């Protein structure tokens, strides 16, 4: 009885239509506006991180040529670059941005279940970004502890930003987690409790499955980061010793005693490994939809894809210490964590096979989103295979802390999700604005970015094999640093700068097309999912007319034999099916 009661309840909600500019664009409770706010903020702060990486590359490619990059500044660049990219760009953009935009639209809901909480979520996120950026204006500058913030060094004299930077970083993270929790509760509850008629879980587009599982992971994993941030703040400010062992610094015995630095690493990676999948799973989901739509073919093995997402989510909680093989943890742990890590390769490989099989003999349209999707699959395979090296203890030990690791994680969780994000923006921009992004600029942007990232990260694998250590300000006169390393580092830097500058094309495209772009119409890609079936483009506040759409089929009815078009929207009943019996 209750089920039937819920859809009309949602239908009856009269969304509030504010008129002042402030209420419409800043304090808006419309999930689409909040999504765009999240998106713009995340991309903005991401550009800061991009500039930082460019500065690091300048130092690595041409050491001693730039006076403004001293070792302190370099470590601050590393730390801020890593943290911004992982948390404030990828997590915020994929979940706060795409999660917010797609969840209600693709589920056929009016809005998130608690729009007010959703609005607060964005503003708290915005505050966390401000606190993070404030690091650059506090005495001593931002922390240079590396994005993993390992104690004891993170709070010992000698690490840049030890006075204030580390505190702004930790506080900003705690605030971010509050923001994420408010948003995440909304996404999960909306997906579980507020879908439209006929939208069963097994009819949801894979984008929603990815976002759903990633949000669940976030809600369960961020607590570990929150707790470690709180404890490190206490260690730093009032002198507790949770993470700090008895230690002497600069020839002086400090007051700390008996804490466990390993505890921090365990907590951090208990959060950190699910975090990898918080970033990866929405990308997996979105790319599945992009591939299916632009290849005009149903996704291969939909159920397998769903269960793979669930399995990866579950497994991601028991693999964390593979980041700690050289940390001095219990020696028996290596076996356990190497095993679980390699098991997680199974569902991941299933997904890759399914993407490839979807593309097989498909009617592939080489649109910009499709280019990015194919690039993602290739890049993800490369990054995933190097993961097999690093997942094995015995292979990992010599490769630890070399550029091989840098190449691995940039390929698998840096470049791959970013490629999907680009593809997704090219795909959904028409729905957000009613305009198409310019195709030629898009193609140019794609090829420079795609080839450029390979020019950057492929050589890094080699650098790792010859033993170049990561996180070094300069390599100096080491025997292993031969001519080829110096040359490659210069090449990488040039490629990185080109890719960095090429992103101007993308930003330009976003702005230019908003004013001068071709009108897209409601469904330019001829896609089946609900967001393309809205009565207006861009959808108005409340998304639908007085009646919510009814779903009759899964999201992947492309090129169905005998059908009128080569796609059938989810909201289209099949012959003989009538409203009121959607699941029959």
């Amino acid at each position: 009885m209750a089920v039937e009661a819920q859809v009309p309840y949602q239908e009856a909600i009269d969304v509030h239509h504010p008129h002042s500019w402030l209420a419409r664009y800043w304090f808006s409770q419309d999930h689409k506006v909040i999504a765009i706010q999240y998106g713009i903020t995340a991309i903005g702060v991401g550009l800061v991180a991009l500039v930082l990486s460019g500065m690091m590359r300048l130092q690595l490619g041409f050491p001693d040529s730039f006076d403004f990059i001293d070792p302190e500044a370099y470590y601050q660049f590393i730390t801020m670059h890593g943290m911004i990219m992982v948390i404030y760009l990828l997590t915020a953009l994929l979940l706060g941005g795409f999660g917010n935009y797609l969840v209600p639209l693709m589920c056929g809901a009016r809005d998130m279940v608690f729009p007010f909480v959703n609005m607060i979520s964005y503003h708290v996120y915005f505050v966390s970004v401000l606190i993070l950026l404030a690091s650059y204006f506090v005495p001593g500058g931002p922390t240079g502890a590396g994005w993993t913030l390992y104690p004891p060094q993170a709070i010992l004299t000698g690490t840049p930003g030890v006075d204030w930077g580390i505190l702004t970083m930790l506080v900003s993270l705690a605030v971010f987690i509050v923001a994420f929790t408010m948003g995440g509760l909304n996404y999960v509850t909306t997906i579980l409790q507020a879908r439209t008629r006929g939208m069963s879980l097994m009819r949801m587009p894979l984008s929603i499955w990815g976002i759903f599982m990633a949000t669940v992971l976030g809600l369960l994993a961020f607590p570990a980061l929150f707790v470690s941030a709180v404890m490190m703040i206490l260690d730093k400010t009032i002198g507790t010793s949770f993470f700090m062992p008895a230690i002497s610094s600069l020839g002086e015995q400090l007051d700390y005693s008996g804490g466990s630095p390993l505890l921090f690493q365990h907590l951090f990676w208990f959060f950190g490994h699910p975090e990898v999948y918080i970033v990866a799973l929405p990308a997996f989901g979105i790319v599945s939809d992009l591939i299916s739509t632009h290849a005009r073919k149903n996704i291969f093995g939909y159920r397998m894809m769903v269960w793979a997402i669930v399995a990866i989510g579950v497994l991601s909680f028991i693999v964390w210490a593979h980041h700690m093989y050289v940390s001095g943890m219990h020696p028996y742990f290596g076996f356990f964590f190497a095993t679980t890590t390699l098991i997680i390769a199974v569902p991941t490989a299933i997904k890759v096979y399914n993407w490839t099989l979807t593309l097989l003999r498909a009617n592939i349209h080489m649109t910009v989103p499709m280019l990015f999707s194919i690039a993602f699959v290739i890049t993800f395979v490369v990054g995933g295979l190097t993961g097999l090296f690093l997942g094995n203890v015995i292979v990992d030990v010599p490769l630890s802390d070399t550029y091989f690791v840098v190449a691995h994680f940039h390929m698998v969780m840096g470049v791959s999700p970013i490629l999907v994000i680009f593809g997704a923006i090219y795909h959904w921009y028409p729905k957000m604005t009613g305009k198409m992004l310019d195709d030629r600029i898009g193609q140019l942007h794609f090829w420079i970015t795609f080839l450029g990232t390979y020019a950057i990260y492929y050589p890094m694998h080699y650098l790792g094999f010859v033993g170049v250590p990561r996180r070094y300000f300069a390599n100096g006169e080491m025997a292993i640093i031969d001519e080829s390393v110096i040359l490659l580092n210069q090449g990488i830097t040039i490629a990185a700068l080109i890719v960095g500058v090429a992103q101007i094309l993308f930003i330009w495209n976003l702005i230019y097309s908003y004013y001068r772009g071709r009108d897209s119409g409601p469904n330019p890609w001829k896609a089946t999912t609900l967001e393309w079936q809205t009565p207006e483009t861009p959808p108005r506040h409340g998304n639908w007319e007085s009646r919510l759409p009814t779903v009759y089929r899964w999201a992947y009815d492309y090129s169905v034999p005998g059908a009128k078009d080569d796609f059938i929207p989810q909201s289209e009943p099949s012959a003989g099916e009538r409203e009121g019996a959607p699941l029959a």
Partner: protein
Amino acid sequence: MAETGQQHPISIYFWIWGLLFVFSAASYMVDYAGFQGYLRWSLIIIFMMLKAGFIVAIFMHMRWERVALITAIMLPPGALLVLVCLMAWESDYTWETRIVYLGAEIAPEPLPPPSHH
């Protein structure tokens, strides 16, 4: 939707209330009586689980919820069990290394709290 809410005879809450008092008193007595070792630990854990179970099952109405909600809430903490077990194992190892390699002494008896009359 008020009719679908959780409505149960009030007597059951009194029963549970009483039981929680009894279990709390019992676990308190474990300490008071000075039981040590496995006996102490199993008693404390048993009483703790009983109390937690009754609070979740009756006061939070989990017993009357549908299986879908029960599984969704009760399964994820399994990840925590893995964390706790591995961290316990890890802690033993860290403790041993401290004793063996850092020359730390095996914990002496704690000092009594400062007396104040």
